[in-house]
């Protein structure tokens, strides 16, 4: 029964017809934390709907450096761009940042739904709109903010945001803000010396919220 399997879908205002189709065609799988399940360039077969957990979508450079394209949260879709652009292979790699549950829809079924279920198409459009807004903000930050400001903004936002992601490595933080790990390490050291944060083993503690907030508003 769809009701029991995919509670996140119920939150969406989808018609019974749409939910019935999803019940018949949407498969579910569990991905363990740090498990990679999608490889860039592999044959494109399915799209994914995040039911629970967080998924990291990323490119890898030739020297192994990771470029995080985005963190996909519950209710969001990914691998849809490749399908809509009629590409042969997956657009990027994907790995789970924590234990996650994914809904999987075959590419053909996804295209069929877009054509025949208007409420589903609206859902996908909203998903794209959210991603576009995020990327626009990111471009603005990269253009107008220093790396230090981007790091502070990241720390402040992560502190406020959903704590479903358990932790970040320095490399992942660097990938999120568009820099390299060494820079993150140096900047964290600077922020500690200035009394803005403390680092106690695996905890980055934001000490002076006011000063941190003022700095990103400059």
């Amino acid at each position, binding site marked *: 029964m769809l009701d029991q399997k995919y509670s996140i879908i119920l939150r969406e205002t989808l018609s019974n017809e749409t939910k019935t189709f999803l019940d018949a065609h949407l498969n579910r799988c569990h991905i363990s934390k740090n498990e990679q399940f999608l490889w860039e360039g592999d044959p494109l077969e399915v799209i994914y709907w995040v039911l629970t957990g967080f998924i990291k979508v990323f490119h890898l450079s030739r020297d192994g450096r990771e470029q995080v394209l985005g963190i996909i949260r519950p209710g969001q879709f990914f691998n849809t761009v490749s399908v809509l652009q009629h590409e042969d292979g997956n657009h990027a790699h994907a790995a789970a940042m924590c234990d996650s549950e994914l809904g999987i829809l075959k590419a053909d079924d996804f295209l069929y739904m877009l054509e025949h279920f208007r409420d589903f198409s609206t859902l996908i459009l909203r998903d794209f709109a959210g991603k576009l807004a995020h990327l626009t903000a990111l471009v603005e930050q990269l253009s107008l903010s220093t790396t230090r400001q981007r790091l502070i903004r990241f720390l402040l936002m992560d502190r406020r945001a959903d704590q479903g992601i358990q*932790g*970040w*490595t320095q490399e992942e933080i660097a990938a999120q803000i568009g820099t390299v790990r060494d820079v993150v390490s140096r900047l964290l050291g600077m922020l500690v010396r200035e009394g803005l944060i403390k680092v106690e*083993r*695996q*905890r*980055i503690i*934001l000490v002076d*919220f006011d000063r941190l907030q003022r700095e990103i508003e400059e």
Partner: protein
Amino acid sequence: MEWALPVIDEKKCIACGDCVAICPTNALGLLHGKLVYRNPRNCTFCTLCEQVCLQKAVRCEFVITGYEKEG
């Protein structure tokens, strides 16, 4: 408070010993061809093991938190 340690992915670890060699506090060791924590309480979470691992088998995860300014 739980003593946080770097997370070792046994599927990726090839027991090359680079992290053991670079660990400044002898927290890590190799036992029967497997990476283990020899002296976990020595670990200072310096993240050198993560930096040196070519297999990306070691993760030093930071949790971002906060508390109100004192005074």
